[in-house]
């Protein structure tokens, strides 16, 4: 499963959410799908994306917050999972892309080669850890259609949820992001001043067959 395909699958749902991503590959890939003012890319301080998400979720309970995290970052702040679990914001979805490596800080190489793996490569189970920390919902997914279903359920749902998605340790096509960190920080805060739109009709997962795993019909026009 590719991170980029997962991001494409949930991109339409992120329109009205506060989205906080970690640094590196996932930030660059979300940016490549189309930057929005409600996306904040935490380019440093690994481990704190979920803490920032918690601060937003508690401050604006009516807005959905989606944290897009990674295995390396989460492992730097495992205690934070317990803080989220006990605070239990109903409006926070914690997506963790688990590529079993510290890819974006140099632990990976082109071609999916992993030379500095994380402990998830030797069996540490982040979905299990989140569940044991007290997340009401936590799920491990390995297939794109399962990811889409779980993520849409969580985003349209009303419960603190964690989705751990096993993904390839692949570099993004480009790390280029033409938005300065400070510009991003100020526009993000401004975007959160606008009240969230009324809840729209939840979208059901687009059924994707194995034969066409990377293209989601709803996003085709965007790609063209």
């Amino acid at each position, binding site marked *: 499963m590719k991170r980029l395909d997962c991001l494409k699958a949930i991109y339409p749902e992120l329109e009205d959410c*506060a989205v*906080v991503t970690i640094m590196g590959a996932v930030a660059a890939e979300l940016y490549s799908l189309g930057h929005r003012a409600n996306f*904040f890319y*935490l*380019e*440093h*301080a690994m*481990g*704190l*994306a*979920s*803490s*920032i*998400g*918690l*601060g*937003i*979720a*508690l*401050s*604006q309970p009516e*807005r959905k917050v989606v944290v897009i995290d990674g295995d390396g970052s989460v492992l730097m*702040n495992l*205690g*934070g999972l*317990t*803080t989220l679990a*006990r*605070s239990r914001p109903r409006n926070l979805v914690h997506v963790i892309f688990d590529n079993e490596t510290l890819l974006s800080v140099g632990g990976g190489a082109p071609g999916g080669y992993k030379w500095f793996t994380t402990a998830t490569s030797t069996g540490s189970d982040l979905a299990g850890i989140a569940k044991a920390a007290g997340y009401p919902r936590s799920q491990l997914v390995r297939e794109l259609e399962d990811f889409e279903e779980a993520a849409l359920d969580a985003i349209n749902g009303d419960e603190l949820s964690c989705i751990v998605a096993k993904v390839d340790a692949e570099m993004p096509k480009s790390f280029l992001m033409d938005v300065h*960190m*400070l510009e991003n*920080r100020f526009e*993000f*805060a401004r975007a*959160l*001043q606008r009240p969230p739109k009324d809840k729209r009709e939840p979208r059901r997962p687009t059924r994707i067959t194995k034969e066409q795993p990377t293209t989601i019909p709803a996003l085709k026009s965007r790609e063209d």
Partner: protein
Amino acid sequence: MKSVGVTLVSALPETWLVHLIRMADEDPQMTLVRLAKEEEGVGVSAGAHFAGVRSAMLLQNHGFLQAINGIVGVSLLYKIPLLMLITDRGSFGEKDPWQTEGGKHTRPVLDALHIAHEDLSRPDDVEPKMAQAMTLAQSSLSPVALLLQRDLMWEEPK
């Protein structure tokens, strides 16, 4: 804290902070986030700031030292206001040997990071200093620290 608009407090307890944290916990207008480690509080405060809510962190010298990476990588790097109320252990009168080292290094580290800080020792100073600290944090988009002193926070048990 309420007089400067703080409605969200993240904290880890230590003996001097017990009353303050309990007051925050019992106040229906306050949200208390019980942290596992102080660095998380920097993230929580940043998120609150993005969402338009004023917050404060209650911590101790070693909590501050623990949170340094978050302070540098979030508050300073992204220019985010952060009000830290740090109980300043390890100064004159300290009986606990284990508090004496952290106390020594708090000010030099604050200075090294160019974080504005002032001591709070007298109850009359609390409200005006808190207001000044919050004003500076908001105008400079930076962390600021109030170092809560023994005379303000602690009475030796008789």
